């Protein structure tokens, strides 16, 4: 196994610095090539730790079972290096979301050049995984998000990722300028992972996802079929535009949650309160509109009216599974599904 570090793009910054889009390449054999991307948003760190854990696992494999590594893995832990180093979600100076700049342009401003370089580089691959945390406002259970247009190809891959949820979005809600949409539109399979919360790392989620990625790599032929890897422990729920319910704040104030994240809830269950810091009054009570599973919960307390506080997948529809999913683990078991 050969391991090396280099950059696929280098740009001069105005004063004595360079911006480099760095990667770590693990080369085993002529088998399939796969990519893992993280840090597209500078405030999302979960994917950086996943890259570290994958790198550590591959380095260990190089010393113990190098013959079991049949393909090539490229890790890009910092797609937005300026944003990560300055704790900004967007691309500094340009104040633009890197994930709204794809497929980019080689002669465009810096964000579009990063996008173009990535698009030019990410080809001849069996799979790209783009790992996002949530933003600083919301905590998410490990999940894969897929555009309905590409569901036929991507859902079978996502099922093996050891995530808790697969969310298939209708085409109208999909942003076309993302890296995932741009790659999938060109026939390059790209899975988008969301998990955890912005500006934090959730090690338990990382270990869960790493197991899924390694199993999927083995299924794709990147790793030898007889290589022993911990088995996936999750059977993902299947969410779609019809069974996901959004709870947006009715008024502005301070949101105080009343429940833990990732629990089963019943209709009318109190999920939290929006209170006034100026008095003892409760401005709004947030209750579940359905029986289901709370898979998104607000982390950042201040809310404007409209701010998302929770997402619930209704469980009465969970069995209507067009892709042949078995019943989800934990359904109907009350609180503390995971």
């Amino acid at each position, binding site marked *: 196994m050969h391991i090396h570090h280099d950059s696929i793009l280098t740009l001069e910054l105005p004063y004595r610095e360079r911006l480099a889009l760095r990667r770590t390449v693990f080369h085993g054999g002529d088998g399939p090539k796969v990519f893992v991307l993280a840090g597209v948003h500078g405030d999302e760190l979960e994917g950086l730790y996943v890259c570290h854990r994958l790198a550590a696992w591959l380095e260990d494999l190089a010393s113990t079972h190098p013959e079991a590594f049949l393909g090539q893995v490229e890790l890009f832990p910092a797609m937005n290096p300026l944003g990560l180093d300055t704790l900004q979600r967007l691309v500094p100076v340009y104040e633009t979301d890197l994930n709204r700049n794809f497929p980019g342009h080689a002669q465009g401003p810096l964000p579009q050049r990063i996008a173009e370089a990535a698009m030019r580089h990410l080809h001849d691959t069996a799979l790209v995984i783009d790992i996002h945390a949530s933003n600083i406002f919301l905590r998410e259970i490990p999940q894969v998000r897929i555009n309905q247009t590409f569901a036929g190809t991507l859902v079978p891959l996502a099922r093996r990722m050891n995530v808790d949820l697969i969310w298939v979005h209708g085409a109208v809600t999909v942003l076309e*300028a993302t890296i995932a949409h741009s790659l999938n539109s060109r026939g390059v399979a790209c899975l988008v992972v969301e998990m955890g919360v912005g500006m934090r790392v959730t090690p338990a989620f990382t270990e869960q996802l790493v197991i899924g990625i390694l199993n999927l790599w083995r299924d794709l032929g990147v790793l030898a079929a007889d290589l022993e890897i911990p088995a996936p422990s999750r059977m993902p729920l299947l969410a779609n535009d019809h069974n996901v319910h959004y709870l947006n704040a009715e008024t502005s104030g301070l949101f105080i949650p009343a429940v833990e994240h990732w629990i089963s809830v019943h209709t009318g269950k109190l999920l939290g309160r929006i209170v006034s810091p100026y008095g003892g009054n409760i401005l709004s009570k947030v209750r579940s509109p359905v029986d289901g599973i709370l898979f998104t919960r607000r982390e950042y307390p201040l809310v404007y009216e409209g701010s998302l506080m929770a997402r619930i997948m209704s469980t009465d529809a969970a069995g209507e599974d067009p892709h042949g999913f078995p019943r989800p683990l934990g359904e109907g078991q009350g609180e503390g599904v995971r």
Partner: protein
Amino acid sequence: MTQRILLHMTAPLREDFDISYHDIGAEFGPPRIALVAGLHGNELNGVFVLSRLAAFLQEVAEGQQAGLQLRERAIIIPAVNILGLNTLNRHWPFDNTDINRMFPGYDAGETTQRIAHTVLEVTRLAHYRVDLHSASLDFEELPQVRLYDPTEDERAKARLFGLPAVIERPTNTIFTVTIGHAWKAYGGGNFVLRAGYAGNLQLPHCEQLFHALVVFLREPASYRERQWWRSLRRMCIISAWSRWLASSPKPLACSSQTWRWAAGNKLETSSDMSSMASMGSSVLK
């Protein structure tokens, strides 16, 4: 002044606030034109121009502008991102989202989705729709009309603004979540006007934009052409932009743009904006 509340919002710790708009002219029927500015809170030129235009059209509607008559209904939203405007922030400051990447919006969604939805609802029925912007903090734009995959009617009407440039661009993946793209679903004529740079006012650009909008509104369906033209000439005598009107160049139509970007160097302009450049001549150093 026919100022109305577009959206009333609460704030976590401050007083409630409103996003307002002007509904001027004919009381019934769909608006002939809808104009929007301040989707980005640090782009001040459009906010100033539309505030001034609203006042001007209100005077016309009330018969205070001799010889002028407002025959149609106009919707004007001078500032959408008022929280960004008050903090000089391009984005919605609370969650750093770009309101002009939230269209078509959603009335039960996130705050900026709700704002986008409301703005679209009040503007979508207009026959003509105009979205005003400055450039970013980094560049200055010559006042211009931008068209995205235009219809022949949009291409023809864009020239009525009389601005120095009409730039055509193909619809791209970024554009699909802007108000300009959302408008296109409803037909009519849709225009993005850009002038100057963000973070401050450039009054000459504002004059040119204001003039361009008034010229556009002289379309016969909005005003009696002859009366308007006489009035306009009287106005020109006392205003600085009369000279511009006399020497107004024909609009420049571009089917594509070449982007130049440099890193690692401090840039200085070596020619004035709007001056002519020959191939190979130095415009930046």
